[in-house]
């Protein structure tokens, strides 16, 4: 389990220009939990997760991993890196080997695994993420945007870190790829009982997979709690946080405004189908 206590971070540039990117954020993710992080662009999400895996040193606050304070105990930096895996917002930033295979295998080699073990793990994870085997011998630079992203995710997931952090992993993925990845994450999560932290702009996606949600606005935490609770808030307020509800939610709230008996926020198409069926069945049989 990972716990963040009062984390803050301020960027300082040459001309002493200071940007406070993260202010006093606390949360915890138990083993087997998925924390979803939402917030406008520039709200501090990437900064926050870079502190978690030791890439940025917090200005103040603490990070506790499995009971150990990893902010003060920097001796084990490599240990931290291997236990907390971060997939960057820009997949290019972590692709530097000459073939896709070597890229995915990079971390595994560092862990000193045997060649056949590395080979089978790479093939397995590549398959799981829908990366065609004939891509593996190509240069990562020749991949399409979505393929690059899968490659970066594969490299981190192969390591099976205690805490897996993904910074906007579904950006630029097609629907099939997105659903695939989310399913992979859920499978991984139920098999391995690890903690996952997922950043996304897709409210539907976060709701679907997260046990808890953290919403950032201008570096501050403005919501920390259950997915359902967030949607009890006013739509205008959610919009001000950059969180437009999904189209189906908007459609159903317009229908509700006409006086139909529909719950406050209908979040998925499935749920909408059920609600409409109920309304149609109310007055006798369907057409």
């Amino acid at each position, binding site marked *: 389990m990972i716990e963040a206590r009062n984390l803050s971070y301020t960027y300082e540039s040459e001309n002493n220009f200071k940007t406070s990117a993260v202010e006093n954020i606390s949360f915890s993710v138990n083993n087997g939990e998925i924390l979803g992080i939402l917030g406008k*662009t520039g709200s501090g999400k990437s900064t926050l997760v870079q502190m978690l895996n030791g890439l940025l040193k917090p200005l103040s606050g603490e990070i506790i991993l499995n009971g150990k304070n990893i902010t003060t105990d920097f001796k084990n930096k490599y240990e931290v890196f291997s236990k907390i895996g971060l997939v960057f917002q820009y997949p290019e930033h972590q692709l530097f080997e000459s073939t896709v295979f070597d890229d995915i295998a990079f971390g595994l080699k560092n862990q000193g695994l045997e060649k056949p073990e590395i080979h089978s793990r790479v093939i397995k994870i590549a398959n799981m993420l829908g990366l065609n085997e004939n891509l593996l011998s190509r240069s990562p630079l020749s991949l399409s*945007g979505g393929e690059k992203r899968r490659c970066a995710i594969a490299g981190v997931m192969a390591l099976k870190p205690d805490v897996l952090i993904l910074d906007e992993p579904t950006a630029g993925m097609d629907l099939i790829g997105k659903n695939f990845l989310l399913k992979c994450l859920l499978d991984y999560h139920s098999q391995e009982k690890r903690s996952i932290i997922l950043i996304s*702009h897709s409210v539907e996606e976060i709701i679907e997979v997260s046990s808890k949600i953290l919403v950032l606005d201008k570096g501050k935490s403005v919501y920390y709690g259950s997915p359902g609770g967030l949607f009890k808030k006013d739509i205008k307020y959610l919009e001000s946080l950059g969180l437009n509800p999904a189209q189906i939610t908007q459609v159903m709230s317009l229908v509700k405004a006409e006086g139909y008996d529909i719950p406050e926020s209908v979040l998925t*198409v499935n749920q909408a189908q059920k609600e409409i069926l109920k309304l*149609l069945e109310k007055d006798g049989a369907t057409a």
Partner: protein
Amino acid sequence: MEKIIEFKNVDYAVEEQKNKKHFILKNITLEIKKGELVCVIGLNGCGKSTFAKLLSGLISPTSGLINICGLNTQNPDHSYQIRKKVGIIFQNPDNQIIASTIEEEIAFGLENLCIPREKMKARIKSSLCAVGMEGFEKKLTSTLSGGQKQRLNIASVLAMQPEIIVLDEPTSMLDSVSRKNILDLLLKIKSIHKTTIVLVTHFMEEAVLSNKVLFIEDRKVNFLGNPYELFSDEVFLKTPSLTPMQSSQILSFIKSLGYKVSMKALKTKDCANEIIKILENHKK
């Protein structure tokens, strides 16, 4: 309307192994008219970015012909002209940013077009304003968040006032509110300047606002035409490589129950009205 982009039997292939050609796009023939907003959709790896690069003259077809504003992209004498006419925003916002401050970044493109210094300031200001980054001139590009970088790239291209703007997934890292703002901005530019816009996207709610969608599948153009036609077509709705809009999903569900439904009510308001109409008729 005059055609501004023309592809004739265009192939693009790479050599995967020695003497083994791998086709990324095959036999593409199409026309795009001046002032249209065309959305390019399709699965990861289907060739959208390749199409965008061909269209901007950054890569040349391995066979066939591409004309932009009547200029053949393969003729090196045309490359300066084409660069002036076509502004492209790449998929990865980092690849595009070179300068250290935002002002310099936008000025860089303008210098290439020989825009006089006095005029630059105003253009920089108005293009930053257009993307909601007014007052960011002196900020360092290295300090921007992912979404801010995407907006900066759009501002740089806007400042150059090109005839065609090609955007490769420009909003993939934006929150949904900023994403809507960018789309509104593109629609505004289109209507004011009659700019032709080619937008690669995975968001169908963006595609439905376009004049035409170009759906690439299996290396070929599977569909080029009105988005309503595509998204209300039962066959296309069942194609796994097409992401249906939530509105069309719910409408097709209601239709499957035996109700008469207009599958063209794809926009949020239209869809809600269609559902309300059905519920009301049902009450009677």
